[in-house]
């Protein structure tokens, strides 16, 4: 090995040069047929449906036949009375869940990287809710959050607090679902933060201690800035999740009471249910554009900061 690297045979040199030349021309090391299976799957399952959905968003579609109606669906979609409420709720939901996940995830990660007993067990416990089915979690919490017979309000009543009507009070419904979403998703944020914190070299903490830094200072000046890549990942993942969230909301409130906890995804889903296929496809195109318009610049911003560091 060493010998070969030190003095490569002339033939090998020639071959490598030829290979590099081919690379530069953009030639791939695989024959074309090698790509075929993946290309067929990709085209049939992703490319065609994506373009088909863009096409059908311009039609009135009954699944069997369609009429081309130009931008009417988009006009109709933006006139949808529930849409404004849905949009506002989507942003509130995305912001609340991702803020709480960042804050709680960070705190829990600091706790779980410290020297506490049963650390491995506690780390896995915080991750368990992530593995549960959203629908199951939704149904269980609907029962727990029942205003009169639910366990949560009974527990609060035992200590003399009158709990709110969680899922059926218009003012609380969306926040209640967001809290359950945080409970379910904070495990993933914590695990990402644990990885981020563990990778910070111990020398920084030791040096800071020598200089007499308090633990609060250590947290704000070492852990927080050096865990920035983890923060970026958590924010982006939870914001995408929050913006297109649907399953938990549908399982718990179906957008109700009335329209008070509707998000864009549930507005679109209800349009599918009603058989307005073209209209709801237009809604999905809009949702796709909104998520892209938020995530793309945010991701560029967060990643640029990371490089500058």
């Amino acid at each position, binding site marked *: 090995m060493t010998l070969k690297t030190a003095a490569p045979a002339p033939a090998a040199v020639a071959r490598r040069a030829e290979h590099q030349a081919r690379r530069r021309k953009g030639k791939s090391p695989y024959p074309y047929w090698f790509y075929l299976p993946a290309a067929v799957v990709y085209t049939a*399952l*992703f490319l*065609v*449906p*994506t373009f*088909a*959905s863009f096409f059908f968003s311009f039609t*009135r579609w*009954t*699944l*069997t036949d369609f*009429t081309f109606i130009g931008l009417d669906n988009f006009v*109709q979609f933006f*006139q949808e*009375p*529930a849409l404004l409420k849905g949009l506002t709720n989507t942003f509130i939901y995305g912001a609340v869940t991702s803020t709480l996940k960042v804050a709680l995830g960070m705190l829990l990660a600091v706790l779980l990287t410290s020297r506490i007993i049963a650390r491995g067990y506690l780390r896995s416990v915080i991750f368990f809710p992530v593995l549960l089915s959203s629908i199951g979690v939704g149904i269980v919490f609907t029962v727990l959050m*029942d*205003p*009169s017979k639910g366990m949560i309000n009974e527990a609060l009543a035992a200590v003399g607090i009158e709990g709110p*009507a969680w*899922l*059926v*009070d*218009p003012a609380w419904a969306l926040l209640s679902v967001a809290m359950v979403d945080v409970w379910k998703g904070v495990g993933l944020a914590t695990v990402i933060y644990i990885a981020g914190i563990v990778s910070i070299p111990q020398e920084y903490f030791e040096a800071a201690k020598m200089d007499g830094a308090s633990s609060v200072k250590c947290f704000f000046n070492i852990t927080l800035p050096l865990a920035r890549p983890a923060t970026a990942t958590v924010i982006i993942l939870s914001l*995408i999740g929050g913006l*297109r969230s649907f399953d938990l909301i549908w399982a718990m409130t*179906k*957008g*109700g*009471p*009335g*329209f*008070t906890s509707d998000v864009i995804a549930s507005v679109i889903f*209800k*349009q*599918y*249910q*009603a*058989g*307005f296929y073209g*209209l*709801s*496809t237009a809604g*999905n*195109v809009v*949702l*796709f554009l909104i*998520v892209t318009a938020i995530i793309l610049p945010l991701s560029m911003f967060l990643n640029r900061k990371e490089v500058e560091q």
Partner: protein
Amino acid sequence: MTTSRRRPWGSLTVGVTALAVALTGCAGGSGGSAGGGESKTITWLVDNTENTVTYAEQIAKDFNAANPNITVEVETRPQGGEGDNIVKTRLSTGDMADLFSYNSGSLFHQISPEQNLVPVTSEPYMANVSESFKPVVTAGKEVYGVPVGTGNAGAVLYNKKVYEKLGLSVPKTWSEFMANSRKIKDAGIAPIIQTYQTTWTSQLFVLGDFANVAAASPGFATDYTANKAKYATDSAAIKGFEHQEEAAKAGLFNEDFASATYAQGLEKLANGEGAQYPILSFALPEIKVTFPDKLNDIGLFPLPGEDASKNALTVWLPGGVYIPKSTKNLEEAKKFQAFIASKAGCDSQTKAVGANGPYLVKGCDLPADVPTAVKDMLPYFEDESRNSPALEYLSPVKGPALEQITVEVGSGIRSAKDAAALYDEDVTKQAKQLNLPGWN
């Protein structure tokens, strides 16, 4: 990206389901014809509620006894939107069962009857079908189906024991209804049961009031279809929303109306915890199963309007049984349709699940032991001037969001006036999707 894929995955799922359904359908059909000789197997697609499956199996059995060389295989599908999709997909791929049950009225128009179904207008057995049923399975000039199941009502189910104890009589006007309700409240019983966790149950104040609307402005349904009448601007039509608002403001609902479910509502009614429940009479078979000894404590009266002399019942017509053009066993399918539209057909349904309302087939009698609530309902069915089909049977225009809107009215989130206007906007989408004249 993930979001943009969501729709194609959805349609893929529909496709795969359709394919799976189609394959099983094929297998059933070929299995039957492979039976050889004279005997044939035909298939019948019905929804999967226990009530439907029970009577469907009984009809199939009795039909086979009368026609030994034709076997009917009952297939099931889910209810609601998912079931609608399966019916539409199977029809458009030409893989529908030999017969299928589906709603009459506005949903019937959404499966393109003229394109997909075999007209049966001139079949001799159509003479048995009640004239009041034919319009709701008619598209263009042709009739396409026979009724299966019984007529139902959207009305107030009430606990007779509570009424007796408080010495109340059945209200004929809205103000009598409110007066009764206040007395019931004073007695410590929830006067009006509302169950908004099961959202569809919130619509009855509006949908069940339609007979009163039809009595006050007879042309409403036609004008409504033609985009000329609106809930918000018609003084009779908006009453349903206003009544719900008024009852909510007066605090006449059960305390847990926002979180209660349909099943809990029936329990309250049966136990006398609540006195009056505006609901569909489809609830009666469920009460029969869950609280058999309480069934005859339950009575029924139409949702009261302004005028006692015009007090009428809003009627829900049964679904139809249709034959798709794709069937290869047309003769046998028609024979089966004829059986359903005959006294023998009604009798096997009564034998299986009891009678929960009048049949829409001539010559079908109800047994003497029908539940009290059904007895209360019959006089209205017998006199045409005292009932009207619900709006969904008279007009294809029905908005999908009414149940959310009425939940908002009943919860005090939205005013009746606003709600009616919002519902008018909601139906526009449906009318446009159906390409109705006057809406585009």
